[in-house]
């Protein structure tokens, strides 16, 4: 069988590390659409993604992952829809040092609701070392309220192994959903 290609989306608020995460694992020089950030009240960083980031990873069997990073700000939400089309899964990155990280997560889960409800989402919480609140329990309670089950992990996306951890867990979750859904019966976890 010829190698297949899978599309993955990195979503999350401005400054959560989407561009960094893709750069950490892409085997090609990532395509970037950085422009000057004029909204320093929202985030201090100098540049921000205006359209998308793009990177590639080849898996052991030759299959290829196409990694798309979305712009964080909600004024670019049309790009979320465009990029999310046909995606296998979404990695949502949350910056715990922002004013309301729980509201951030809620917004991106809402935007990628279909993937999340289909167990095709994984959530990475960053800057938890310096900003421990809200704690992981609060994020778990939030996604339970929304009616989604997703792994939530403390990560530092500057570390390649942390980004690979997110991908690994996303894939295992998709694989498990195929295994369990194909099984004739079983006591499902609500």
């Amino acid at each position, binding site marked *: 069988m010829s190698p297949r290609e899978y599309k993955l989306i990195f979503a999350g608020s401005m400054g959560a590390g989407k561009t960094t995460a893709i750069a950490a694992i892409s085997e090609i020089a990532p395509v970037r659409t950085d422009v000057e950030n004029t909204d320093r009240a929202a985030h201090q960083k100098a540049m921000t993604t205006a359209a998308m980031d793009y990177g590639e990873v080849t898996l052991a069997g030759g299959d290829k992952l196409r990694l798309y990073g979305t712009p964080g700000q909600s004024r670019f939400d049309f790009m979320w829809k465009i990029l999310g089309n046909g995606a296998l899964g979404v990695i949502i990155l949350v910056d715990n040092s922002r004013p309301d990280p729980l509201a951030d997560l809620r917004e991106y889960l809402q935007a990628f609701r279909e993937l999340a409800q289909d*167990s095709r989402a994984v959530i990475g919480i960053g800057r938890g070392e310096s900003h421990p*609140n809200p704690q992981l329990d609060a994020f778990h309670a939030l996604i339970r309220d929304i009616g989604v089950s997703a792994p939530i992990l403390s990560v530092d996306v500057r570390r390649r192994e942390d980004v690979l951890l997110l991908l*690994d867990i996303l894939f295992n979750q998709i694989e498990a959903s195929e295994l369990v859904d194909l099984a*004739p019966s*079983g006591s499902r976890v609500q």
Partner: protein
Amino acid sequence: MNAPAIRPALGITTIGVGLRDELLLKSLLRIVGTDTRDLWQYRDDLQVDVALCTPQTVSSLAVCKSGDYGGTPRFIPVLRADENPPAGTPALRAPFRAMELRKLLDEVSNLLMMRRSMAAATPHVAADIAVPGTSAPFKPFRFGLALGKLIERASREVHRIEVGSVVLHVIPAARALLIDAPLDDESLAIVLGPRADVRIRQMDEAEAQRLIAGGAKPQTIDWLLWRAGLDGPADHLLPGLPEHGEFALRRWPDFGRLKHKPSHFLMAALLTRAAHSVDALALASSQPVADAHAFINACALCDLIEVRPAGGKPASRDTAGDEGALRKTR
């Protein structure tokens, strides 16, 4: 999100931040007051838990420079746009915003709880705590079970745990381990080993104070509970877990902070989706039964496991065909 309980209010005041910021703080307290972990009340004196101060103010500068950001009251620097926060203390940016104020107050609540635990309000004396099974010469999971029980009691006092030659300090209510340096492999092997004696003692106030003065820092204890389950005997489940029961995960373990093997990811994914028996979990994840035992034990010690009545037929790899498109990326 917190249940309304009868709580004594904590005090907050300002030093030298200006009338406008003081008024803003008072009105914000009314807005965020119902959402914070503790109740907060503005006071005009210094009999408070928190004082917001400008680092430039001479009087507050002297206080801040003394280095005791952690004292009582706790001094929180108020920063203007161009100022950087000092290390080792929470800070608040002016003009105050409701969300940031709430976050800061909750952060301070956590720190205060830590302090209260260590410098407990009620004077107490050291007391030994019985550890089940200490009389037996060989008791698997002894440390993990003892630690799990201790955490369950949710005491706010500092407890000293001696395992052979290794000493650990724990605040159960905060699920926190107080340590000044990471545990080395040798100490960890002693702690997790089946043969060491485990002694738990509630510390008295003076001991707890000495511990803080010595620079012990709190860190989450879950990694140690996890290791205690994972590194325990893998030929059976923890006492109390039915060998033929079905298990489900309440939520995903934080693999970002817990030692893991790649096979744990599929096990976690399976158990969050459907309850599995140990054998079914091993079969579905193509792992030895011993690994399924170890994984469930680790999850159970971290309070992530739910036991379900035995029921329907669990998933098996054979039924899934070759749809496992997703090979590992490493």
